[in-house]
């Protein structure tokens, strides 16, 4: 379990329902490590600014991560935690590997989700 204030995606069904709904989603898939914790913090800080985006996290070492985020073609070459994937209209619109700062996340949101 991730100790964050974000809503967690814990089942494949939850993930599928959210993605298929076509809503704007940002999922941070990681562990409670030094590269991941800042990204959860960034997402938490942006929740009130971008109320139409569903900010979620997902434990990297989980069955749901293996079957969803970690098996996406967009994350195939990733080797740095966390994997952050952005969805819109049921499709992946951006994906990043490793730590990102607030400005980098905002740039992606502004260009791909808003």
């Amino acid at each position, binding site marked *: 379990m991730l100790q964050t204030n974000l809503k967690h995606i814990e089942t494949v069904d939850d993930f599928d329902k959210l993605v298929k709904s076509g809503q704007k989603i940002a999922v941070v898939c990681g562990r*409670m490590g030094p590269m991941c914790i*800042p990204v959860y913090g960034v997402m938490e800080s942006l929740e009130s*600014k971008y109320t139409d985006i569903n900010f979620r996290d997902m434990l990297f070492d989980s069955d749901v991560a293996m079957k969803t985020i970690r098996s996406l073609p967009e994350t195939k070459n*990733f*080797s*740095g935690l966390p994997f952050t994937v952005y969805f819109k209209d049921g499709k992946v619109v951006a994906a990043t*590997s*490793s730590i990102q700062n*607030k400005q980098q996340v905002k740039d992606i949101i502004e260009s791909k989700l808003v």
Partner: protein
Amino acid sequence: MENLYDVIVLGGGPAGLTAGIYLSRSKMKTLIVDTGSTGGQMNLTDKVVNYPGVLEGSGAEIAFTMRRQAQNFGCRIIVQAEISELDIGGKIKKIKIEDEGEFSARAVIIATGGIPRTLGLPSESKFKGKGISFCATCDGDFFTGKNIAVIGGGNSAIEEAVSLTKYAKQVTVIHEFDHFQAHAWAVSEAEKNPKINFLMEQTVTEFLGEDNLEAVVSVHKKTGKETRTEVSGVFLFIGYVPNTSMFKNIVKMNEREEIITDELMKTDVEGVFAAGDVRQKRYRQITTSVADGTIAAISATEYLSQQ
């Protein structure tokens, strides 16, 4: 008046959090502002075993406890802050934070720490998260059974090189000098490890690969001989640069852009103090940052009592 503080501490690493603890306990109305999460570089240390009073703990755990201590004494902490305006040259120090508002204080402690040094190669950003990493404990297991390189020769580089042999088939340490800055015991441990080999006096010139990192190219500083090391991953531990860009032309710095203070952590600007890795000093440890934060807090309290 809600946003008027006695002291604003810029930075929430060990120096800033310690200052927050001491100031708040002294009943100083204190605000800590961090542009990221609290903990600073301390968060990157997987295992801390030389912090007095803590037998063993992760840097993140110690940071979390420090943060709770500061908050328990009434310190307010704003994280992920986007500082849009900074005016600390006058008697009243002012800071504007996006979505939070304007804050002012009679004293400021700069404790913004350091940011990881990079090589500055264009190919470095291309492979970030696709072979290039800054955290062995986070990403080591992506390279299980593969060849990797560690760039650097300080304690972090040498200790992490040893740690990475848990996963990697072979670890090549690539260093710019003919000797290491790491402690002798750490170097000795690395030298005894059969999975580690060394490339000394190298300048890294390029990272190569298609989608993922495949090789690192370096050149011997004296002979000019080029070496191509086939690796799937590179871990960069080449030190830190002071996070002082926002204080340029405000406080006095040395040629490395570290803030110059006296032994009471006072800068050349009245009411502005600096603590931790951001200032000019020789040794950079969690303990030395904590000491700096303590001194800066007491100095700031004394300064305010004399106003």
